[in-house]
């Protein structure tokens, strides 16, 4: 798994639960080092070991840790770059959902060796979507549940997002748009200079 992905999991644990929990997670997972490097590639089993170790230490289910990771990627101030790149997906939340299939390709423009999950978007109607996610990381669908809920808030959309189990070698997430102008949402400008960048 790409260092950037592992590093974002590390930052999520550090920013949410503190440096001591990250240090304990790294020990518990038997990493043999105390920090992931962004530009190195690591064996996928290490990523799994980190998630499992964090779940044990926090006494929470693996699924809920992964869901919080998804929320963190969109809503934490230390992950603003991710939120911005996701907002490039479209003007509306529905556009954004459609653009998810393009996401791995877009990411590869920047990092040719990044292994983002592969998505398949199915629109049953203008308000009902299914997202099939495929990744070596078991539970990737739960990351998407957290991420899609946070993105709905970001767009000011009221939606129902649920993990619907496994299908065709992937995990299925169902999205139902209840109201597309629920709240103001957060402002997004294509030009970065238009917003305060931390």
């Amino acid at each position, binding site marked *: 798994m790409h260092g950037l992905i592992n590093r974002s999991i590390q930052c999520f644990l550090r920013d949410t639960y503190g440096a001591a929990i990250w240090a304990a997670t790294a020990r518990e997972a038997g990493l043999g080092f105390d920090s992931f490097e962004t530009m190195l590639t690591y064996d996928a089993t290490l990523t799994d070991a980190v998630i499992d170790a964090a779940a044990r230490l926090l006494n929470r289910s693996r699924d809920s840790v992964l869901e919080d990771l998804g929320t963190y990627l969109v809503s934490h101030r230390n992950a603003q770059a991710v939120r911005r790149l996701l907002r490039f997906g479209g003007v509306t939340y529905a556009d954004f959902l459609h653009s998810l299939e393009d996401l791995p390709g877009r990411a590869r423009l920047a990092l040719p060796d990044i292994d983002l999950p592969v998505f398949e978007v199915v629109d049953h*109607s203008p308000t009902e979507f299914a997202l099939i996610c495929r990744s070596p990381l078991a539970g990737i669908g739960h990351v998407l549940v957290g991420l899609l809920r946070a993105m709905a808030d970001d767009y000011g959309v009221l939606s129902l997002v649920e993990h619907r189990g496994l299908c065709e070698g992937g995990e299925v997430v169902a999205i139902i748009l209840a109201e597309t102008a629920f709240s103001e949402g957060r402002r997004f400008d294509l030009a970065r200079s238009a917003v305060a960048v931390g």
Partner: protein
Amino acid sequence: MERRVPPVCLESAALGVLMPMHVVLDPAGRIIACGQTMQKLFGQRSLPGADFFALFDLRRPSGLTGMASLRSRVGQRIYLIARDLPTTGLRGVALPLAGNQGMVLNLSFGIGLIDAVGEHDLTDADFAPTDLAIELLYVVEAKSAVMQELKDLNLRLHGAKVAAEEQALTDTLTGLRNRRALDLALQRALHGGGSFALMHLDLDFFKAVNDTLGHAAGDHVLRCVAEVLSGETRQSDTVARVGGDEFVILLPGLADPTRLMVIAQRIVLRLSEPILYEGRDCVISASIGLAVSSSYEAPTADEMFNDADQALYAAKHAGRGCVRLHAPPITSNMP
């Protein structure tokens, strides 16, 4: 007063300059004309005359199976693929022609641009003069070159960091020298030919501190011990932490057992004082075994370490907080 703008009419060839990947459909969904890049994707197979919906799979929004449904999505982004070119994802937008004479669709490669350029052998001339596709290719290529450089640099720095850590001579917890530094210093002392002493020190009751007050307390104790050892020795001595609660001090130029015993006993005395940690006393003590180079005909590192260790064992056996000097061979010149 509002001025009415007449419909814009363009020859198909002119439209092709603006949009080299457009497709013009008649009201029945048959292709009437297309741009030259669109035609290039299909090679010998001529597009005009073909049924658009047979040639293309309109994947999203769902339900786009004919002209009526396409009309209901006017102006919206559409995701589609040509059935014969499944690896080339396309996106497009459809607009009605004036007078209800059919529709025009403009297509592009979207994110698949880079792969498409390779697969279909596209050149600058295949894109509209206003298209930023070539700029995008340029940015990606320039960025990849820079990225490769950074990646190589990153690997070099990472390798250097690992090597530096291996070669480091310091014990990171206490700031004392580590085993490696001690070995180097001992080699120097042995080769230098002068006399010297080895002091092997082991803490008593340290495990109890760790177990009852936690690792943070244990770490604090080790740092305090390091301060005492540094304070009670000379600048030229090497004070090393060689194990969890094990220390070795190399004292060059010092072979007088009496003086060594005085130093060792002073250290033992200092370390018998309780160490305060977060309002609680940590009580430890230290046992020391000594070996002196002048006890040997030709001292070796292994032999001296071993003998200092034996002396330490004897000190521990004699009760905590004791000092023992390795008993020299029979031909001893000890007083």
